[in-house]
């Protein structure tokens, strides 16, 4: 992946802001004033788009293009870029629309990015449980779409990788290994599904990044990450990889015992944004879940992105207009006490 940070992220400090803070800190430190108690970094700001889409049969490209426009993703920014879409594909059952990112959403994203002038768009995934990614493509209904539109798929599990120092340092892992293809990609787009999760509480665009790490090095399941800590691993991967964009398929989500054995929850939304914690916080609120009760989101707040509702400018639909309480189960520890009050 090209190493540059996302273009003009509103959630990040500018170099000028950083310089001001640093200089102020130096001056105050030499004058004996305690810097840490005096200057708080400004709250990170973000924008998140919610688009309505009632079915997978509707034309989703205008919805995505509308979202790009609201989020200031311009043709000038995308022109010539190499895009990798990372859907959430797990073990599935034929015709189960609530488990995986739906093929029509992926197809629409390919079309939308090409419309904006992307040089190439590939789909890449490293499923957590199965080595046979092609069979998952078939069962998820994605193989037909990829074949029809001649869209390239890469199995991230079976790709050799390159090591990056772990920037997050929330786990004991000193480095993370990402697939080699990321070095040839400009934008990574996490395309998650709106789901509850029996270990993490929710699975959205940040948890979806588990699938970027090759099984060659992490196993099937990616047990290295489980032992290192699920929430901590989510933070480390996000901090180190810094994906540029997120699109969540919430047209039909999953409630109850997600990410696989839960039940369908038609929600009729697509959530998009540049700031992954903000997108996930919005996704959680849409499900009637308090993002601050999800450990990885609480810890990401104002570090990896915006989570506080007052710092997220909501464009498109409002949360309240599309919010539905997803079922949470009493016997699942990660579901306890996370309901938005």
């Amino acid at each position, binding site marked *: 992946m090209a190493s540059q940070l996302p273009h003009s992220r509103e959630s990040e400090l500018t170099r000028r802001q950083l310089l001001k803070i640093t200089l102020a800190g130096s001056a105050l430190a030499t004058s004996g004033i305690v810097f840490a108690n005096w200057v708080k970094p400004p709250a990170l700001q973000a924008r998140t788009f919610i688009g309505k889409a009632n079915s997978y049969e509707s034309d989703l490209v205008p919805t995505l293009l509308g979202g790009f426009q609201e989020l200031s993703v311009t043709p000038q920014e995308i022109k010539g870029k190499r895009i990798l879409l990372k859907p959430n594909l797990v*073990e599935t059952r034929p015709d189960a629309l609530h488990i995986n990112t739906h093929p029509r959403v992926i197809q629409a994203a390919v079309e939308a990015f090409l419309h904006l002038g992307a040089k190439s768009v590939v789909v890449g995934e490293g499923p957590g*449980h199965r080595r046979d990614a092609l069979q998952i493509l*078939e069962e998820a209904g994605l193989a037909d779409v990829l074949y029809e539109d001649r869209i390239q798929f890469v199995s991230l599990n079976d790709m050799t990788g390159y090591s990056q120092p772990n920037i997050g340092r929330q786990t004991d892992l000193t480095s993370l290994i990402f697939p*080699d293809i990321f070095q040839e990609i400009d934008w990574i787009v996490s395309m998650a599904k709106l789901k509850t999760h029996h270990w993490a509480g929710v699975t959205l665009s940040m948890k979806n990044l588990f699938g970027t790490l090759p099984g060659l*090095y992490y196993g099937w399941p990616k047990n290295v990450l489980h032992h290192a800590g699920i929430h901590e691993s989510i933070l480390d991967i996000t901090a180190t990889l810094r994906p540029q964009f997120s699109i969540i398929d919430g047209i039909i989500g999953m409630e109850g015992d997600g990410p696989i054995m839960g039940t369908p929850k038609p929600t009729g939304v697509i959530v998009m944004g540049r700031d992954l914690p903000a997108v996930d916080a919005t996704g959680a609120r849409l499900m009637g879940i308090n993002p601050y009760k999800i450990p990885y989101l609480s810890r990401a707040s104002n570090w990896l992105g915006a989570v506080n509702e007052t710092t997220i400018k909501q464009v498109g639909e409002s949360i309240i207009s599309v919010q539905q309480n997803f079922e949470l189960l009493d016997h699942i520890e990660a579901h306890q006490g996370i309901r938005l009050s």
Partner: protein
Amino acid sequence: MNKYYWDPYITRILALKLEDGGFVNHCIRKYRPDVTAWAILLLNSLSSTSHTTVIQQARTRLAQDQQPDGSISISPDQPQAIWPTPLSIFAWHGSSSHRQYEEQAIQFLLEHTGLHMEKKDGNAVVGHDTSIPGWPWIMHTHSWVQPTAMSMIALSMNGHDTHERVLQGEQMLLDRQLPQGGWNYGNTTILGQELQPFPESTGIALSALSGRVPQTTVQQSLNYLLEELPRLRTPISLCWGVLGLQAWNMAPLSTENWLRDCLKNESRYGEYDPASLCLLLGTMMPHGGIKSLMVSPESIYSIA
């Protein structure tokens, strides 16, 4: 089907050979021990003397990165990722000049397990017995179905079929068999919900258990594969499913056609990765079970 049918595929595999004898993956030309082992298994199964030198060079390359404890990891900078060890044993098997490497790898498997924890009564989080030792994909993580089954086969073919570790592996696989039949990656239930089986895990587990347990013990798993196979046309699921059924002499008559359809499906998916292609070509040979991939079976050229 004559030899000319296979030649383009064999040529494709040979094109992935590096000067030092190792093989690379098709898209990124980095040495891969797993691909090297699969290439050795395929070329060895051709029973053609024309590949003898290539096979021996590849075996030697595989040995080059053997770690002091006897394991083979996916790359030297990731020493914990030891899952290619049983594959390497398959690849070295039958070569007297590589016997010492094979012995060290066997010793590694006999001396190491995954991470295990006491099974607590009433623990409803996971359904399986977490205390039964098997083998992990990555050191210091839990044991899972596929590496355990592969390690059992590697040890059994080297005369350790009654070793305590193999017996433990057998016990672990039976404990992880799903109540409805089949295996997935290695969890049976989570929070009380029974999970779904996968053909590839089921096939590998059935190969490892062949000749070890009565058929009735795995009948539901065999039934699962018999039901699934007609709709599978991707190499990993189909081939391991076929191998698992062949190990129990239960492969349907249509198997050969399904495998050919799978090979033709490269027009749909693009070229298969070399490990999958080797697995597929190897499975298309006439005799059953994963063991047939390891000990020079009848030449595939002899298939009429």
